[in-house]
């Protein structure tokens, strides 16, 4: 099992876990492998979209920092927590 957020992310992508997640525009997310569902807020949705597209935490942080006008170090902390949370849900 990965130990740092970027490794967590790589693991999720390699196992197709992030891509297979079904996410609606309302933030309802369904994991077809486990049958678990959960909700993601608007910033979470934006984060997930970037993570899926770039597969890179730094690029995601940079994009979100620009989009929301928030310092990158603050965004980084939030994105890392989000990735760890995804890794817990998508075992």
């Amino acid at each position, binding site marked *: 099992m990965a130990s740092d957020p970027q490794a967590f992310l790589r693991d999720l992508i390699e196992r197709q876990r992030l891509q297979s997640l079904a996410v609606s525009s309302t933030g309802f997310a369904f994991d077809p*492998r486990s*049958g678990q569902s959960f909700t993601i807020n608007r910033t979470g949705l934006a984060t997930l979209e970037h993570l899926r597209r770039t597969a890179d935490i730094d690029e995601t942080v940079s994009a979100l920092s620009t989009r929301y006008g928030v310092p990158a170090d603050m965004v980084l902390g939030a994105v890392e927590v989000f990735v760890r949370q995804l890794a817990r849900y998508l075992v």
Partner: protein
Amino acid sequence: MNAKPDNPGPGLAVARCLRGLPDFAGRLIGLGYDALDPGLHHGLLDAAYLLPYPTSGADAQFERLTGVRENERIDVVIPCLDAELTNFAHNETRLLSLGMRTLAPTREQIKGRAKDNLPALCRRLSIAVPDTRPVTDPSFFDRCTDDGWTYPLVVKGIYYDAAIVHDPAEAKAAFHRIADQWGYPVLAQEFVPGYEVNLVAVGDGRGGMVSPVMMRKKALTEKGKAWAGIAIDDDDLERLASRIVRALNWRGPLEVEALRGDDGLLYLIEVNPRFPAWVYLSHGVGRNLPAMVLRLLAGETAFDPPPPRPGTLFIRYAEEVIVPLGQFEAILIDGAVRTGSGNRKDP
């Protein structure tokens, strides 16, 4: 049929699947073992008959079905009860002479996936399985921690029933209750934390697995049976089931029960040699498995099932079936009932 409120048998669900086919024009005949079996009285069926209990043996089953055949043309029998399968396997050729076809496992296949043979099968196929051992002496539960076992653990019947126990007293109580009902040996099994995932499919008898449908339980009865479930798509589970079907050349319906451990590994728990009660979900996700049995028996070999629809839920409910006294009398005295409607459509 064999249905109980919080633990329904698969028979009615199989009947609902078939009745749900838009082009189904056949008659549905229920076969059950108890006059109070609700499936015998359900309006989904055109007629229903009592069979002698499976313990009466294969000859008694054949004799009764020969009698039923005098009243009903039966083209296909879909056994739905573990205990009756051996008799059906024994009678397969004789039933064929009456025009009744079955797509059911052979006795060797039934034995190959039996609970006490499962660890060996898993070893052969390199499938993870919780450590399991047969127990005939309940004092095992007092000293099992000396041999490396840890509580909680699971106490299981050889055919049915299971309890999670947390100490020797609970374990011995479960041991006696299960042994009284289901006989010896009782099985002690390592408890693996995680969540249960199930798969239902049909084996074509040549090593192929047709149209798997997978489900995760979302709400449980006290017995741990699914009261609600959601369709999933788990490649690992599908591969695991495929290996079992291929290794046994499985013929007929089967249910694979597995556990996705908190460690991420998939552990095989059980292989049931028939459709489960939740098989109606297969109709709900567009992969009507009882229909697959009919297609296989009709000689079809190529199947292109639609993609599974993960996220489709089922939620079970119990309903009262109203039975006129004359119908109850008919099943008790004649062992047969014609419900008459037999054309009720389910959504």
